[in-house]
């Protein structure tokens, strides 16, 4: 079996080590004896989405995001089609802002966006930075990661994650992220797949099972990720409890 991955704007939306998500995904697929072909495409190039099973876009500077948006808007219909067909999307960081109704930049200029979802994005003059612990109904364990952005998302219906710690869609929001059909979007950087092996496992299984419902998976080994995850949660729980104690 071959899984075709489209890594869009790899050289212009390339902040925060996001390429790590693709490294993890590719490796885990190969460990299942699946051929994972990653195609890199960027601005100035023609795009089509039918060849691909999985589409990824990561974080970029606000300026580069607008350049990518201008290019991507030409393919609004194709993206909608791909989404309706059930193709997988993993969209992280401020790339998620591309998929809403509009982006309002720091100077008050409004950019029309892909309108795949009905939220609006707004870029503030300040940065929002925090460690994150989010609860996700799909998993027993919490999702961990980081947020580092100037953007906020509003009117987000049915967020994917519940914010335990972190900023969420905007400071003080209870929810963050999008999961509709096979579209997964979140502001979380990490990279999210590197830090949450259970999410990687889930995504790999969903992706592969869509192509072959009878695929027999080999056991996935996430020893290193699990130890790293454990280390973070131990620290977090200690600090969380300390904070609770001081608040008493």
């Amino acid at each position, binding site marked *: 079996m071959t899984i075709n991955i489209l890594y869009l704007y790899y*050289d212009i939306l390339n902040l*925060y080590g996001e390429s790590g998500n693709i490294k993890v995904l590719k*490796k885990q697929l190969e460990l299942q004896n699946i051929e994972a072909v990653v195609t890199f495409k960027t601005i100035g190039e023609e795009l089509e989405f039918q060849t691909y099973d999985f589409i990824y876009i990561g974080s970029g500077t606000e300026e*580069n995001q607008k350049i990518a948006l201008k290019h991507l808007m030409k393919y609004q219909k194709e993206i909608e089609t791909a989404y309706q067909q059930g193709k997988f999307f993993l969209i992280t960081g401020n790339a998620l802002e591309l998929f809403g109704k509009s982006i309002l930049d720091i100077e008050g200029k409004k950019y029309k966006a892909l309108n795949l979802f009905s939220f609006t994005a707004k870029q503030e003059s300040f940065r929002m930075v925090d*460690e994150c612990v989010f609860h996700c109904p799909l998993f027993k364990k919490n999702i961990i990661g*980081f947020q580092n952005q100037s953007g906020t998302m509003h009117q987000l219906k049915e967020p994917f994650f519940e914010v335990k710690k972190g900023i969420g869609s905007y400071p003080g929001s209870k929810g963050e992220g999008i999961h509709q059909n096979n579209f997964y979007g979140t502001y979380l950087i*990490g990279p999210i797949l590197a830090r949450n092996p259970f999410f990687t496992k889930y995504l790999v299984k969903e992706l592969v099972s869509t192509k072959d419902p009878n695929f027999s998976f080999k056991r996935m080994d996430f020893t*290193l990720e699990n*130890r790293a995850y454990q280390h973070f949660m131990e620290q977090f729980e200690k600090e969380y409890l300390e904070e609770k104690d001081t608040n008493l």
Partner: protein
Amino acid sequence: MRTALAILASKITAAILKLLHKGSSKPGEVALAIDPKIMTKITYPKLKVVVTGTTGKTSIAGTIANVMEECGMSCAQNIKGANLTKGIISVLVKDCNLRGVMKSEALVLEVDERYVKEIFKYMKPDYFIINNLSRDQLSRNGHFGIVWKDIHNCIEDSMHLILNADDPLVTLMAHDHKGKTTFYGMSNTPYTTTKPNQNTLDLAYCPFCHTKLVFDYYHYGNLGGYHCPREDFTRPVPEFQVTELNLEEKYMVINQNITLPLKNDILYTAYNNVASFALCKTIGIEEEALKKAFDALSLKVQRLEKLEINGRNTYVLTSKNETPISYNQTIAYIQKDPDLKTVVVGFENVSGRYAYRDLSWLWDIYFEGLVDANIDKIVCVGPFASDLANRLYYAGIPSKQIIVNYPIETIIQTVKKETKGKVYAMVYFDLAYKFRDLVRGDKK
């Protein structure tokens, strides 16, 4: 009155600290607390130089200050990495009398990139050196675009810019500068490559027409020879260019006829030297005097050190966390050694300045470069050893080559028992001194 009091209190604080053999930015803190406007009350020397950039600030500022002193100019400087406001004020106050008049002929400051806008509110330098700009400490900086804007917005036409021509983000600073600009850079050397390490260039597209920049060659990171196919943006020809570089024999040549020694065999040292040379020549120091000064150099802040474990050559290469270019420079250095080696990598804290434990920057580091570097083992050490090991695994390092060893205390035993070859410790400041102490302690 308030100013005099601030200066006096600061000098007393400094004297006490000196008696206790402690150094810190406390004197600056004290002065600032008594007189928040102290920086506007100081009479600065006639020659003011500021150096900034993601890497190289300390080395360049230190080299310039040392060269000036060798050439008979008195110089107030803030070497040793005290590059935030408090540290800078400490230096200013140390050099001035109670009326706030500085006695040195020149002021040479290294300033942290995010603090340039703060410092420039009160003191405009005559010469402003920007060595390079790349993603660094993104938890506090957001991204390099923000850092770039902050610096660009406070450049004034009265400032003579001294810029690294090889860094497109730096040369972009001068595109609307009406004052003087002098460029330095490097031509093709035996260490130049035609491919970048990863797709993590900070400026890959022409900032004017958004066409992909063509890189004819790379020295490291985003630095090299670049041009826009539409000719909107091209690497400027530097006035001071490294025309020959020999890291093995530790020398470099500027403009085909000025030979300078290199204090070590690391590529970026050549940039530090040519930047310093460019500044000193531009302010009017004679070439002969400069050559003599460089020959006599010794820098107080060293990042490279050599030790031994069981007779195995051991190198401690301090690398800056959250600064991929710093780790990439270390990896490039390790790659050049063809012998069998073991790498120790790790840190105690992600940052020395704030509590955020973002680790995404690990994935912007080109660990892939260690795959074919004749590695016996890579030992990951510190509380984040698993995160490091995880990154290495996905970089293509075979699992059997990766060792997770959390406690720093047992690192020497692990290296001795389970690894072979030379030892390169690619570690952050907070583990570097511990590692060195352990190696030295083990010898006894």
